């Protein structure tokens, strides 16, 4: 098996694992972690396509590489936003659960704002 194919299969497995973590873990922070794992698996696909497209003296096609660099930065922005939302939820309600029954009454929730 060639190196790109091997790492392509790795990317597929990482994306599947991330998706499983995203669905199954009840804690929002663990969901963010799963989401990042899913994303990194998808990014590896770009690396595989870039490596397969090696030509003109380059070890890998630069275009997918550049797109993945942009993708990593955008994923980080989304993660920072998600973490800020989560911390605000915790600050406002004293809990970090997504469970509907467990959230306190609306009156309590806004007491901090």
């Amino acid at each position, binding site marked *: 098996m060639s190196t790109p194919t091997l790492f392509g299969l790795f990317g597929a497995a990482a994306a599947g694992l991330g998706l499983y973590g995203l669905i199954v873990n009840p*804690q929002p922070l663990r969901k963010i972690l799963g989401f990042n794992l899913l994303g990194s698996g998808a990014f590896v696909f770009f690396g595989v396509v870039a490596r397969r497209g090696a030509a003109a003296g380059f070890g890998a096609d630069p275009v997918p590489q550049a797109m993945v660099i942009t993708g990593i930065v955008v994923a980080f922005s989304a993660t920072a*936003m998600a973490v800020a939302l989560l911390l605000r939820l915790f600050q406002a309600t004293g809990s970090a659960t997504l469970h509907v029954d467990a959230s306190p009454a609306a009156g309590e929730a806004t007491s901090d704002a």
Partner: protein
Amino acid sequence: MTMVEGVDAGLAVLVLAVAVWTIAAHDTFAAVVGFVTYGLLLALIWVRLEAVDVALTETAIGSGLTGVLLLGAAARLRVTETRAATERPAALARLAAATLSAVVAAALAAAVLSLPDPAPTLAPAVADNAAATGVGNPVTSVLMAFRAMDTLLEKVVLLLAVVGVWSLAPDRLWGGRPGPRHQADPQGMLAFLARLLPPVGIVVGIYIVWVSADHPGGAFQGGTILAAMWLLAMMAGLTDTPPVSRRWLRLVLIAGPAVFLIVGLGGLWLGQAFLAYPEAYAKPLILAIEVPMTLTIAVTLGLLLAGAPERSTER
């Protein structure tokens, strides 16, 4: 199986095992540490895919900054940990999720195995036009010239993320300082490192931006190192986060995208197209964009990690 193939297969299995750990670990803190390890090892896979620029980005942002962000959040959310353990979904739901994930992974694997051969590539097009940018690193050429629009929009996404994070501040704290004030032993190891490392880190950060013209590196990777040095000083309590109402802060935040936009509109005005650089000035223009952009990136990343304003400026 040759030696190299064996190493590749071992690397893939090792990184996957760490990925399983980040999903399966009971403690969130441990899971995040697993994720940082995963990112660092993933960078080796990027090197094996001949994508050193991506490896640097993955190490600095995907693993490093995301890791710090999640570790900080895990520490603050520690009290919610025991309660969350009771919310585990039923076995049937977990089985369904596992089946769905396995199907998605299998579909992706099938896609990898059926990629066209010979692979389509834009590498010759980049090589043919590389001379026009005056930049030797093909990835920098693509980021700063051929697909500059993507990079410009990515800067806007970063700016929007900062606005989004800030907007989560309670009304009475608007304009205040982000995040908690960090305290550290002034004689301790953290404070020592926060004095020792920044002079070195700042030089390395600027160097990585500078060499990206001809070697792996870039404004992002360099800016991340600069942000890390700032964060180190903040975490050691040597400096405080600036209040978000400061005008200089806001000017630095928009400097990068603003210069990029002005150069882009200049291309339109000179008659070619939006973001088209006159060939004779391509290299100086790219540098003119990269310098303020590096500063903007460093400050933006630092502020994204600091979070929403939590303290009024009076305190």
